[in-house]
């Protein structure tokens, strides 16, 4: 069975090496990200339905640093 087939939901990830605090993620998807005390994005711990994939990918693309990715979840 491939990973693809076991995915039941989606999660965001932020690569903190590249995040520069633009704040696009929490502006565009405020239920999925929060700002930390100084304006860097943090992922809210939740699994999103597979049907949100396109919407989530759009948020990821809007990150100028390409620090946001969407990954499959088996939760």
């Amino acid at each position, binding site marked *: 069975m491939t990973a693809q087939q076991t995915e039941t939901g989606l999660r965001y990830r932020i690569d903190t090496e590249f995040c*520069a605090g*633009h*704040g696009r993620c929490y*502006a565009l998807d405020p239920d999925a990200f929060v*700002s930390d005390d*100084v*304006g860097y994005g943090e992922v809210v711990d939740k699994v999103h339905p597979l049907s949100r994939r396109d919407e989530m990918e759009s948020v990821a*693309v*809007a990150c100028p640093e390409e620090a946001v990715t969407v990954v499959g979840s088996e939760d």
Partner: protein
Amino acid sequence: MPTMLERAESHGLPVHLLDLENDERLAADPFGVWDEMTKVAPLFYSPANRGFLVASDFDTIKTVLRDAKTWANLPTTIVYTKEQVLMNTPPISMDPPVHTKFRRALIPLFAPNEVTPLEPRIHEITHRLIDEMLTKPDPDYIRDFSSQLPARFFLGWLGLGDDDVSRMYQLAQRATFEFEDQAKRDAVEHEIGEIVGNLFRARKEHPQDDLASKMLAMEIDGEPIDVDLCIDIGRLAFIAGQDTTSTQLGYIMWHLARNPQDRAHMVARPELTNDAVEELTRYYNTGGPAGRIARQAGELNGYPIEPGDRVFIARCGADRQFAPEVQLDRKPNRHTAFGLGIHRCLGSHVARVEMEIALKVWHERIPEYRIADGFAPRHRYGSFMQQLTSLPLALG
């Protein structure tokens, strides 16, 4: 040793003239010039003045701005000018690891949770400027609004009040557009340094609830920040806090006043103002200081880089290359208007809030407007950014 030009030619790097100081097309159609640059190549060499590489697409720009080891901000110079002009504008003119410490101390002062309490003040200034503009026989958005709002708001926040706004705005303008030679540049910085220095020394004695006092309270390595260095940072804030947002707002309204459908969208869908700001900032990217100097040998897109090589980051063209037309509700929307990497615009959160409030309130109060008859746009150039010099409007 071969020159940059000889090396470019011997490696087959395209050579194309980008002359920011002298190309008069920049006065009539700067965005056309940027679009032309993206068509040359992602990386090319411009023989203008002392010569420099031009990074003109997103991937090349990202590569340079993420690689602070190879591409330094020190010495901080304007890469495209005829004469070398050095700048002292910390924290832009810093590299890691020193930059990292100052950046860490400064970032909280410009964070979203610091900006939110300032929103009522931005609303108040916006309404007052619109009130005044409605009484004028010849309203001009740039003269009466966009050159006023960021200056009045930011100078107030910094602690300077708004008594002498015109002079301070003119100084910020000169600091953004005049790099003729080192002596003239230093004179402008000196004048700004006196204003900012007086403020910071007063606040050091008697702190108040303003940005200058908060900057002075910063600690670096557990020690209070040096006052003179803090004044240097304050000088940059003085310039960047006034000029960039005002220029960007001017272009946004130039677009909306020429495009009735987009103007109608702003009126009908105020909740989407944020998306519109992103799209118009992408399409009319006014950029920011945009050069780097190679501190070590390396390569860029396969081209061998030597220490001392200059590169200009053509962000405006690169952002327009993502999509050649404006679509206010564009999704996804990626752009580099606030920079990339460790030098990302510190004031990006406050700039976005200013623009959003300015546009929301404007469209609530003045839903009908257009460009005044007979207007021929002129753009100030010679800097890393362009600026619309006037925008006469017919209101209502």
